[in-house]
């Protein structure tokens, strides 16, 4: 079987398994699966900026938070459902991303300085939102949880199964979208910019415009994940959602799974969430409950991958399975 064929077969098997999952597993597994999909989706969104266009953002929690607060705020104050609210959320995230991108690229800020800039914006916003009382301030914004037995897709009020399928659809959509992006002109141009920006410019690539595109797409997608976050968890606190640990959680999946690849973020999300939950479960069984263990585990994973598998787990696995990417 050709590598291409094998990839499709694998994809079909996984898709089937994912669709069947809610009907064969309990609520705990379902919630873990939803979380995995959430991180896979958000990780994929971040991957567009870093893995595709090579711009390291350590402040992506900004977009999750903005998306979440805009949609939740509209619902809380005006009863506007998430399907309408998401558009404003996307617009706000696009504006924020465009602002950061414009400032960074116009002034030639890249690499570590760019990462610091993104951190600064996220932190600035985190503290700022603590002072926005209209959105709940530091005490948080709460959306009423109701109608847990039936599916209200319009307002995203419903059963865990509904949320699972919404997240699954989003993740599948992100996967398809990124796959298309990679094969298009954008994919070639972003990689060229990543590899050597001077050479890319000499080949007619308006690197400013293409970098901005990556930033904006990444921000928009992450904003959508924020909207989901708001309606799934039903409570938002600036301290939590804009926090730098959120930003780091987002990047762990793609880095461990494989930067710039399609499956990387998904694989990374699976590995991290499953292992982390496994550890928490084991510890709970042993009666130990220490905050911070999960994070140490994440740190160690990141360390090991950076040191020994800088391209992530996925490329190695892909080779073993006889698949080829792209």
């Amino acid at each position, binding site marked *: 079987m050709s590598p291409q064929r094998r990839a499709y077969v694998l994809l079909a098997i996984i898709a089937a398994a994912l669709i069947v999952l809610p009907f064969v597993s309990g609520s705990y597994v379902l919630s873990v699966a939803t979380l995995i999909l959430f991180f896979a989706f958000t990780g994929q969104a971040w991957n567009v900026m870093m893995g595709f266009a090579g711009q390291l953002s350590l402040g992506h929690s900004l977009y999750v938070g903005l998306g979440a607060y805009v949609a939740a705020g509209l619902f809380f104050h005006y009863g506007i459902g998430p399907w309408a609210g998401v558009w404003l959320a996307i617009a706000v995230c696009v504006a924020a991303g465009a602002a950061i991108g414009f400032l960074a690229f116009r002034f030639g800020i890249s690499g570590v300085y760019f990462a610091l800039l993104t951190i600064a914006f996220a932190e600035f916003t985190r503290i700022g939102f603590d002072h926005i009382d209209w959105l709940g301030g530091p005490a948080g914004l709460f959306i009423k949880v109701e109608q847990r037995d039936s599916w209200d897709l319009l307002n995203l009020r419903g059963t865990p199964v509904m949320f699972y399928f919404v997240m699954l659809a989003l993740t599948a959509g992100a996967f398809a979208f990124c796959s298309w992006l990679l*094969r*298009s*002109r954008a994919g*070639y*141009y972003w*990689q*060229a910019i990543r*590899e*050597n920006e*001077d*050479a*890319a*410019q*000499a*080949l*007619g*690539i*308006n*690197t400013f415009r293409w970098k901005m595109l990556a930033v904006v797409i990444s921000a928009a997608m992450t904003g959508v994940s924020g909207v989901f976050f708001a309606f799934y968890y039903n409570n938002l606190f600036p301290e939590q959602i804009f926090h730098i640990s959120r930003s780091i959680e987002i990047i762990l999946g793609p880095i461990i799974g494989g930067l710039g690849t399609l499956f990387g973020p998904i694989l990374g999300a699976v590995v991290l969430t499953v292992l982390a939950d496994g550890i928490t479960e084991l510890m709970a069984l042993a009666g130990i409950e220490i905050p911070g263990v999960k994070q140490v585990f994440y740190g160690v994973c990141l360390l090991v991958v950076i040191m020994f598998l800088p391209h992530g787990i996925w490329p190695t696995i892909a080779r073993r399975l006889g698949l080829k990417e792209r």
Partner: protein
Amino acid sequence: MALLEVRNIGKSFRGLRAVDGVSFDVEQGAIAAMIGPNGAGKTTCFNMIAGVFAPDAGSVRLGGRDITGRRPHEVCRAGIGRTFQVVKPFPQMSVLDNVVVGALNAHARVADAKREAVRLVELLHLGAKAGELAASLTLPERKRLEVARAMATRPTLLLLDEVMAGLRPTEVDEMVGMFRGINRETGLTILLIEHVMRAVMALAARVVVLHHGERICEGSPEEVVRDSAVLECYLGEEAAG
């Protein structure tokens, strides 16, 4: 008819006048060369033409249009392709994909760009390595890749910056034959910076000589190698006498 018209360009770097009042034309369909000792300002001229930085003074016109001070990607879209003195491949992309990036400048669809890339990869004798990563190429191969990539952008003017450096004489002859062929068949105008005189004499119809940032001579290769000012700057005063 002149395709490239360079008029009085100049550039200073922190007080050092690297290029001063340089003017020359390159005829459509011709192959011209720019020579001169190291530090003469040749690459600086290229960089001004290609838009890497804007000249402090003077103008650059391509096909009658003023492109002075335009940015590199705009210059490429206007029709100038260039290679770099220190080659800049995209190391983690395949040889073919490197050229596809260039071809996308002239083709809207990726499929068309790929086809063009395949053609150019064959032309530059890189067909056997088309699927390999650019990082795995030898230096001569990287230079050919650089040329293929620049040509893929469908330029009307190709700027080659010391593309023969580091090549063995047989490799130089191969490259010369290839450029001659391309120029003959497609009429592509070529301006090259070269130290390898073998290539200059074989390729160029006109030669411009730079020294200390100024143009000291211009003419056919035979005229230039006999010019006293040129001999002086290369070989010293005695040789000029």
